[in-house]
């Protein structure tokens, strides 16, 4: 899980602009990436990043730690700013755009699809980060199997060739990888493995609901 600001730094940032500068340094790349994901345009992402941190500076007195990471608060600000920007630009009913596949080759082009509301963009973004963090804890071959299958949508034969295994062994490996990922995430949620990465309770719980647990 990405580094989060300490409670002390957040407290100092309420009245110390240099401390806010430290918060900015900690989160700016994450916020920029989120904005770029939802606009596909570097200049727009910069504008929205600026808006996000300016709003955060104006509102930081009102931030309260209620178990939600500071990054989530910033991401929600970014999501709202993105939605407002889309509304002003007359894009549909104000829901912003999400890339479904590759980045559009023309950086100034709008793309693809609409999704729900800004809060759900943040939840999806964080859920993806959570999954990625746990995948990174798997053995290399299992991690590769998951990436080839689910991120790159490769065929079994492609996977087997890349992994230098038989198709049968690749099937078994993928099955072990999926089970391994599930087990690691469930162990951490049950609080058994205190060394594992933690995520906000709502992100973990959502995962269990999707797992049918």
């Amino acid at each position, binding site marked *: 899980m990405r580094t989060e600001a300490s409670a002390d730094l957040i407290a100092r940032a309420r009245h110390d602009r240099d401390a806010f500068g430290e918060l900015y340094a900690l989160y700016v790349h994450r916020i920029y990436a989120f904005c770029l994901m939802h606009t596909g345009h570097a200049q727009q992402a910069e504008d929205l990043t600026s808006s996000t941190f300016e709003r955060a500076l104006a509102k930081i007195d*009102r931030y309260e730690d209620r178990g939600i990471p500071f990054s989530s608060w910033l991401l929600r600000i970014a999501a709202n700013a993105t939605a407002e920007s889309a509304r002003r630009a007359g894009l549909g009913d104000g829901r912003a755009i999400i890339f479904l596949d590759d980045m559009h080759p023309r950086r100034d082009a709008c793309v693809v699809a609409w999704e729900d509301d800004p809060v759900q963009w943040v939840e999806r973004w964080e859920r993806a980060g959570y999954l990625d963090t746990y995948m990174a804890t798997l053995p290399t071959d299992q991690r590769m199997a*998951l990436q080839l299958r689910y991120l790159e949508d490769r065929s079994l034969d492609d996977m087997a060739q890349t992994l230098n295994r038989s198709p049968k062994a690749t099937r078994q490996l993928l099955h072990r990888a999926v089970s391994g990922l599930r087990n690691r995430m469930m162990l951490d949620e049950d609080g058994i493995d205190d060394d594992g990465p933690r995520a906000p309770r709502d992100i973990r719980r959502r995962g269990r609901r999707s*797992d049918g647990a």
Partner: protein
Amino acid sequence: MTDREHREIFDGEADDPMARELADMGPYMRQKARVEVERAAPDFIQSLRNRLVHGEKPEYPGDVTDRQQER
């Protein structure tokens, strides 16, 4: 064999909640990984920081929805 079963790589993959979530999130995660290696221009990063640290503190009253979502 159904189409879904035909596309399965391991038995039960289509019904496995973890596999289903990975299939759903996979393309998004790939895209997320791509944008996360992109970096804003260094001069933008620095100029925004200067504005935030040394400039006038902005005021954003926002609206009710804005405040609710950002709490």
